């Protein structure tokens, strides 16, 4: 069964001679909700940005299903069904909520656009309340919702989010994560980069831990929360790098 999203020996970084992601293999099964954890500077953000096409890939490959998308330009990836929600600046603050959604809907065939936007307004009634409001005036949680809504318009097969809980209060985080769980239940494969380990593990199926650009551990989310290895990797205790058994 082909993975919904996979990477092979991915090496990536902003500068050619300074790779931040140093050879990561990842397979995300269809319908999974995988969370990418790791200490600060581990390269989690860079990893998903490389998959999304925002950070140059030096070597290795990424694939969406059976399609190799390593060389596909960033703006084309979404057409293949890979949607990305960046951590900061993930909506167009100077444009209205409706314009934000119209923008995203533009790659859909004309007949589907209006219907899809209506469906998303139904899913996110907060946004439907004032569609002509400038997106920059939304609260942090609402912005996150808009960013997710925007990503969902194209009915992606894989949704990647970079630290969606950043800057949000615990209650809002719970709301956002509950939504993500819902979306995942509807069949969208989700990859989540997160610093908020507890909240993330609560909704994830599986977690992988990135340290210094390498994948150092992975396991089912349920058991990982209590695994001492998590603390060790986060606190950077010196130990032999563990080989990852597939």
């Amino acid at each position: 069964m082909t993975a919904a999203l996979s990477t092979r020996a991915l090496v990536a970084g902003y500068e050619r001679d300074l790779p931040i992601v140093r050879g990561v293999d990842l397979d995300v099964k269809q319908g999974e909700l995988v969370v990418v954890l790791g200490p600060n500077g581990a390269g989690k953000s860079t990893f998903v940005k490389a998959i999304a096409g925002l950070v140059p890939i030096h070597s290795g490959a990424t694939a969406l299903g059976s399609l190799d998308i390593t060389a596909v330009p960033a703006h084309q990836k979404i057409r293949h069904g890979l949607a990305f929600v960046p951590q900061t600046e993930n909506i167009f603050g100077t444009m209205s909520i409706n314009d934000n959604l119209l923008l995203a809907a533009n790659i859909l065939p004309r007949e589907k656009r209006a219907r899809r936007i209506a469906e998303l307004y139904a899913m996110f009634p907060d946004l439907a309340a004032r569609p002509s409001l400038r997106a920059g005036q939304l609260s942090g949680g609402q912005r996150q919702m808009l960013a997710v809504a925007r990503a969902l318009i194209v009915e992606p097969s894989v949704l990647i989010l970079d630290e969606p809980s950043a800057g949000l209060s615990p209650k809002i985080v719970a709301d956002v994560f509950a939504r993500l769980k819902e979306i995942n239940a509807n069949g969208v494969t989700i990859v989540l980069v997160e610093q908020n380990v507890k909240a993330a593990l609560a909704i994830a199926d599986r977690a992988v831990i990135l340290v210094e650009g390498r994948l150092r551990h992975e396991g089912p989310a349920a058991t990982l929360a209590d695994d001492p290895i998590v603390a060790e990797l986060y606190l950077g205790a010196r130990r032999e790098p563990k080989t990852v058994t597939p």
Partner: protein
Amino acid sequence: MNPQALMDGLITGSMIGLGAIGVTLTYSILRFANFAHGEFIAWGAYIALAVSSALGYLSGGLLAPIGPFSFGWSLPIAAVVAVALTGGLALLVDALLFGRLRAQRSTVIIMVMASFGAALTLRSLLEFIFTSKPAYYTKALQIALPLGGGLRATPDQMLSLGVAAVLVVAVHLLLTRTAIGRSMRAVSENQQLSGVVGIDVRKVVRIVWLLGAGLACMAGIMAGLLVQIRPHMGLDLLLPLFAAAILGGIGSVPGAMLAGLIVGLAEAFAVQIVGAEWRAAIAFVILVLVLLVRPQGLFGRPE
């Protein structure tokens, strides 16, 4: 106070406004002040001149003035061709110079410096081809008709104002109501996010160049029709263009047009007081005032 200054101000202002719209669009989407924008104005005027003359040579009838205007059909036809060719020129300069510098991730300053060099090259090329002797689309003189209130305007002037108004409305509608306009606004706000949501930024860049150069071409034809055509006509408008773009707020099309009118009117009224030889300094004064009082301009966002 001579009411004719009002008409002069509106005319100059609308030309400055059309040019400023192009400047503000390229500035907000390509992120640098393009010192070569004035040359699109000049090249637009000259290309139209060349095409119009060629058409007139092929068929003398095309030179016969249409109705109350001073020009024949050769000019509108030439204008359409010129807009396309000037757009092509902008794409060429981008492909050869700016695009390559962007690919090298050059800083803003290198881009501006390059635009300065490109401006000089383009201007001197015009001088080389056409010499600095002033040229005209038509030798027909026009009588200014009274409009009431002491104002007089020639039919050419009225047409120019009308065309400018239509263009501004069209551009505004393009930006606010169409998909491509939304894409342009998105790229202007956040280029990276635009790629993420599926916008082909390179395509948007090409369209911005075409649009900006096309507007500049129209401004140049207007200036050439109402005043004269000279290789330095773009350079002379450059400071007012920038002043208007900054006064209007970078990225705002209505702002650019409004500011263009303000600059034009300010020039027209100020020269009544200090004399025509100081015309070029008015834009500078406006620029300094804007930077002192409200650097983000009328409709711009504070940085």
